[in-house]
């Protein structure tokens, strides 16, 4: 089952496929965990039942998302060995300990306190429960920090030497963790996770406001989400620009691919749209704004921007994917900014909860964060090609000694299983958030939304008759 493809291509597709799914869930759960901590904190502080209801409402979504993140993550932790053994052998001494720290400082923390956060409020009391919720949120952020340190090191390696076995040997761990692209990538990715959650929560709020604009919980979640969108999107755009300048400094070939430039220019145009063609070494149908590319990247009208032809052909990334995924990400970022500013205007006009057009706009923006996160991820990862460790270890030298048939067969298995399992998971999430965030009973110590997994039997049986 090699589908006529090489082992390398199949292994890359398998990695891209599994990591795409894996990335979606943490991008959501990083933001949701912090959101839950804020909601629970507000509930304890203000004793406003709306916050508790929202906590219980989103808790269910978090439980489903987190579970899918865990199981898709186990796949990742073993895939390095099954498909990328040479990479693991060579880069394991550096990437491995960073991921080891992720497990020790983050995964255990999340898993250890998740049970208490989801099911334990009554058993441990409000104080310890709040602590557990906070620990889960902190855990997701620590996790992001370590995995982005590892990923950034692969993009901009530093602090190492090599031994006779061809392994990367750590020399300076500080330099390894705080490698040149790490601070930018970390901030950009964590903000992306927050924005992803904000727009997902905002869309759910908008959906329920469109049905009933007086719903208290829908108002609260929409308002919180729109504050996030309005305040964080501009920051994110600024951080993204800084990240791009950092990439220009350390990975100019990636920038050339993102910009669709094959020629080196003094005063490079900004290509808005076009079709980059690596074989012809030009971007067809390019719609350009003269000199703007140099202004954005070089902060001067005549700054020199290197094109792909300035690099040997076997050191160039393919241009088409980074070019287009980058535009999708930036385009969505601009739409987010529009919605965020619109919400500020509506808030100022006191129509935040009644402006149907704003709600109609926020609704389709629900998945925008997920798409933007994936698009940005493809930009940076495809832009790193043809290397796994940039400039040092080629993707073609990173593979396991594996038959294409074995990788093709496992790829097919992953595709089938992921679509069934995660398709069902997404369906359950959508069904959960389609229910009105309304307490059927005014029970202040515990809202009506049950935690997944732990369910009183009689309640379940009663529900079974009403439910699908």
């Amino acid at each position, binding site marked *: 089952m090699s589908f006529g493809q090489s082992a390398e291509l199949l292994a890359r597709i398998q990695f891209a496929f599994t990591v795409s799914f894996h990335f979606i869930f943490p991008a959501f759960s990083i933001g949701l965990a912090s959101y839950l901590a804020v909601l629970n904190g507000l509930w304890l502080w203000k004793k406003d039942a709306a916050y508790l209801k929202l906590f219980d409402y989103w808790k269910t979504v978090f439980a489903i998302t987190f579970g899918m993140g865990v199981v898709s993550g186990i796949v990742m932790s073993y895939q390095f060995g099954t498909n990328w053994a040479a990479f693991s*052998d060579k880069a394991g001494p*550096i990437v491995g300990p960073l991921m080891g720290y992720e497990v020790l400082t983050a995964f255990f923390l999340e898993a*250890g306190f998740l049970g208490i956060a989801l099911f334990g409020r009554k058993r441990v009391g409000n104080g310890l429960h709040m602590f557990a919720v906070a620990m889960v949120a902190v855990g997701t952020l620590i996790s992001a920090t370590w995995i982005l340190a590892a990923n950034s090191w692969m993009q901009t390696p530093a602090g190492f030497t090599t031994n006779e076995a061809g392994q990367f040997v750590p020399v300076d761990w500080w330099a390894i963790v705080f490698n040149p692209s790490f601070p930018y990538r970390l901030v950009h990715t964590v903000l992306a996770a927050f924005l992803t959650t904000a727009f997902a929560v905002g869309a759910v709020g908008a959906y329920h406001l469109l049905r009933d604009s007086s719903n208290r919980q829908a108002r609260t979640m929409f308002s919180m989400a729109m504050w996030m969108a309005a305040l964080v999107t501009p920051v994110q755009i600024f951080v993204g620009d800084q990240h791009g300048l950092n990439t220009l400094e350390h990975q100019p070939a990636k920038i050339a691919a993102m910009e669709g430039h094959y020629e080196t220019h003094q005063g490079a145009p900004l290509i808005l749209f076009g079709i980059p063609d690596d074989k012809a070494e030009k971007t067809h149908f390019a719609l350009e704004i003269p000199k703007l590319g140099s202004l954005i990247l070089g902060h001067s009208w005549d700054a020199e921007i290197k094109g792909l032809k300035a690099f040997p052909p076997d050191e160039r990334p393919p241009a088409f994917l980074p070019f287009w995924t980058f535009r999708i990400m930036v385009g969505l970022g601009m739409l987010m900014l529009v919605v965020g500013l619109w919400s500020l205007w509506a808030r100022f006009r006191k129509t935040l909860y009644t402006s149907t057009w704003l709600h109609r706009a926020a609704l389709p923006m629900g998945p925008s964060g997920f798409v933007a996160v994936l698009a940005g991820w493809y930009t940076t990862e495809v832009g790193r090609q043809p290397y796994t460790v940039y400039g040092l270890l080629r993707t073609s030298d990173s593979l396991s000694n594996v038959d294409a048939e074995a990788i093709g067969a496992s790829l097919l*298995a992953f595709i089938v299983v992921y679509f069934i399992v995660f398709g069902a998971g997404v369906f359950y999430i959508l069904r959960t958030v389609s229910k009105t965030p309304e307490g059927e009973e005014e029970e202040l110590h515990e809202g009506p939304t049950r935690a997944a997994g732990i369910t009183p039997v009689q*309640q379940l049986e009663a529900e079974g008759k009403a439910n699908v």
Partner: protein
Amino acid sequence: MFELSFIWAALIAFAVLAYVVLDGFDLGVGILFPFFPEQRDRNVMTNSIAPVWDGNETWLVLGGGGLMAVFPLAYATVLPALYIPIILMVLGLIFRGVAFEFRFRTQRWRGVWDWGFALGSMTAALMQGIALGALVQGIAIANRQYAGGWWDWLTPFSIVTGIAVVVGYGLLGATWLNLKTTGDLQARARQLAIYAGIGTLALIGVVSLWTPFLEPVYFERWFQWPTAFFSAFVPLLLAVCAFGLWQGLTANKHLQPFLSALGLFVLSFAGLGISFYPYIVPGALTIAEAAAPDSSLAFLLVGAVVLIPIILAYTGYAYWVFRGKVDPEEGYH
């Protein structure tokens, strides 16, 4: 002996053992699902492990991620050698992991996720056992790469170890249910624990007698003076645990059978350690050969020494919070 690589070998062994005994009982609960067709029982069964399974499975990630960090060469050769069992194991873990949430989110598809939970648990357990058996048999390595075929792992011996792990996890699961449940469910779990206990002991016996004849090194280790003196302790203690299991189950004790079953696993694991040492991949790679550079080992060791005790403390606390019998009427609200 105070080499960093040996300390790490001990820590990785500890992580794997922690995984086997902890996820062992919750996979075991899944393996036993077909014996409990009632929804009511199944809800109690999943509720008994829902707050802790995720933490249990994290030890598997530590085992995998840790192996890549400190023994990258072992990670890079063992996983390709066990390609098919590893893929099937993670696919099994996907189905059983999501079932915790999914089975409560639907009526119509409940049965599908219940089967996913049971078959996923069984597949994961079977593949872990097969992977273990294949590792004990040895793996062909040349030029820092796996040098064998794609089906080398599939032998009569690995199938027996696979079945042994399924039955053994079933025993852990049954004794866990005996500890956490009441009434009819508990009574049936106890009955199943007796069958699974007999099966586990028989399979431990078969594997133990078979192993020394796979490799001359194993034979020497177990049957020649002076190591035979130490290795004789393991079967002796196994007998003690077996008695504890039998006595606890027949005298209707709640905790003792579970602890005895854990003891069986710890001792079997110790037996494997005696066979393996000083190799990490038997016959092919020693602990020292597979180890990452000292700068990697030292960096992660600092964290491990500080963090593992903390992890054990809050994991223990989480178990303590959810201690006692699962109340089928109340849930955890």
